[in-house]
């Protein structure tokens, strides 16, 4: 799995939520990769992975997005994204969406083998755990559903956190419980979503950690948005920002 060569190149997939609302996460992703000796590329023609349409049931539209994505990223050896749910979309749903179109299906399968969530790429592919990050204080980690259950990624981000200079990892109670984002769920079933994010934040407070780190922009909008309204003194941070040391909570 480890790619050797003079200079590694990876193609960045910057999810639309990051692009539009949290571009500093994209920037941090690029900086961390660069610090690890990897040259990030960015295709300016990229848009969205199609997840919102897929989740809402609009498969034709999701398929359009999928084909565009495959056209844009089809030539890349490695694609890295600071979002597990987008990676899941590409990995698990593209082959499903394109199962009736053999040529597209083959291309979808190729792309799906080459895309990685950021922490997964750093730990599993690059084989690096100490990225030269530092944070003075206790840190806990929220296990985003698509990263934990969709990609089976859980140890990787925690190892990266533990290796950060000055950081002490503390467990988050019910870390694997969904934070209640779910895209349109957070709006349409806000009264349930609100209870879920409230519980997540209560568990964060109970953990006693100074900082909550996570790998999913959607969860960050949700948890960060709730913190910003109700506990402005507490912060949630994307792993890329944490590793880059370019702190800014959601």
């Amino acid at each position, binding site marked *: 799995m480890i790619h050797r060569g003079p200079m590694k190149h990876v193609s960045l997939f*910057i999810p639309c939520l*990051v*692009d*539009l609302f*949290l*571009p500093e996460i*994209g*920037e941090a992703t*690029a*900086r961390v990769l*660069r*610090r690890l*000796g990897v*040259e*990030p590329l*960015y295709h*300016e*023609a*990229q*848009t*969205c992975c199609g997840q*919102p*349409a*897929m*989740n*809402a*049931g*609009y*498969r034709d*539209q999701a398929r359009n*997005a999928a*084909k*565009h994505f495959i056209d844009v990223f089809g030539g890349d050896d490695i694609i890295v994204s600071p979002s597990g749910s987008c990676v899941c979309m590409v990995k698990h749903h593209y082959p499903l969406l394109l199962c009736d179109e053999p040529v597209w299906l083959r291309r979808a399968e190729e792309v799906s083998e080459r895309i990685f969530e950021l922490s997964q790429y750093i730990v599993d592919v690059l084989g690096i755990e100490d990225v030269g990050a530092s944070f003075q204080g206790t840190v806990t980690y929220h296990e985003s*559903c*698509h990263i934990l*259950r969709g990609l089976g990624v859980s140890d990787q981000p925690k190892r990266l956190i533990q290796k950060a200079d000055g950081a002490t990892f503390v467990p988050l109670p*019910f870390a*694997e*419980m969904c934070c209640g*984002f*779910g895209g349109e*769920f*957070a*709006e*349409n*079933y*806000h*009264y*349930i*979503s*609100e*209870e*879920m994010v409230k519980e997540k934040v209560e568990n964060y407070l109970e953990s006693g950690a100074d900082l909550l780190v996570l790998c999913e922009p959607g969860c960050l*909008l*949700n948890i960060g*948005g*709730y913190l*910003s*309204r109700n506990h402005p003194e507490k912060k949630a941070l994307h792993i890329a920002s944490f590793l880059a040391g370019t702190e800014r909570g*959601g």
Partner: protein
Amino acid sequence: MEIRTTIFNEVAEREIRNPYARLFLKAMPAVIAKRRTVVMGSFPDPVAAQACGQSIRAEVVARLPDLLEQFERNALERGAKILWARDAREACEMVLALAKERDVSYVTKGKSMVTEEMGLNDALADSGIEPFETDLGEFIAQQLRRPPFHIVGPAINVPVEEVRDLFMEKIGMEKPTTDPVELGYAARLFLRDKFHHAALGVTGVNMAVAETGTIINLENEGNIRFNKASPRTQISIMSIEKVVPTMADAMHLIRLLSRNCTGQAISAYVSMDSGPKGAGEIDGPEELFIIIVDNGRSRIYADPVAREALRCIRCGGCLNLCPVYTKIGGYPYGWAYSGPMGQVLTPLLLGLDRTQDLYRACTLCGACREVCPAGVDHPSIFLYYRSKDVEGDRGLRGKRRPWWESRLFGLWGRAAAHSALWNLGVRVARPLVNRYSRGGVISRMGGFFQGWFRSRNLPVMAEETFHERWRRLRDEISAGGPKGEA
């Protein structure tokens, strides 16, 4: 049973504010789900054990017609009578006819979800035959005229004081008490009398073994065994997917079902009936009827994705970990089946049009799929239902979405495939969104996204998106040399 699936939000918003139920629901992941994990650990290889259960259920779905015929042959050979019911109404009529032929005034019942689905209790009561639920929780729910709150604990949300008052009023409990043992004893006295004189017992079926024609029930109270052993006539009702290929398969599923249902290695009672009482046997019913209920399932079977819902073995393991169920409880799901299990089954049986919220009120977190011993992929099935609803699929009775939503996604789809259009959209949206910014944070947006903004803020849209800042960033980090800033 009254169908209340269309008022999901109304009931859920009420139930989420029910502090008593919430107390219990909050403990579920910590207590029940945790116990499941511990007891699953008693398998030499829990992952393999779960995978084995999943493959058994996959086989069941793949070979369903064959297995049902095999089951029928073997059950007939053992002296059972098999009745095939096309739908709920036909199944109810069969029970009514058998009850009337035997001139019974009441029937005793073991807890059975398919009879809830059929609305059997109402059908019996309407014909002047009184049904008595004999599972304690189901008995309480029935006396309170409430639907089951949880598949395993139908009345687990009912405060003990309410049970006390109910028993004083309805079953002649002599002195008021909130002692669980005494309450249980009062119910027992009442129900023992019913069992004693019962001529007809009705039960569900957990598994029907094709290889042997045996029906199997799991329980913890002994009431199902009473229902099967005490009356002269036994009617056991199963939906078509309850069949399993072999006795060995059934043994494995019993171990999985018990662990996922109640966190037990095995339930307190497991009873198996291969036909009615034989010559020389001392107990069992003189006649055994097995009603096999379709109720829309064969229609589903034609759909290769939707049919996977038929893997479900009704353990309820998915409820105990569901972040939505553990906030709102069982009532909002509006029918016999609640939680992820219900969200998968109910839309198939009632149609996508009447169950919109069931497959949408989900974050797709996948906790249900992860524990499911039958291999149901709930999130994928929900996504499938959503897409069939958008398409207005006839077979599954999709409803189609509001016109403005379809338009919006149509436009979105075009933009997602054309970056110039996409970026234009970003530039148009930004000032519209950011005019609500107060100090770099948005805490309301007029009438838009009111649900979100009730409890959360949103960062402003970036004055410079990643896309817009990329070239500068690239030049900056490239200039830093191969090691960048480190």
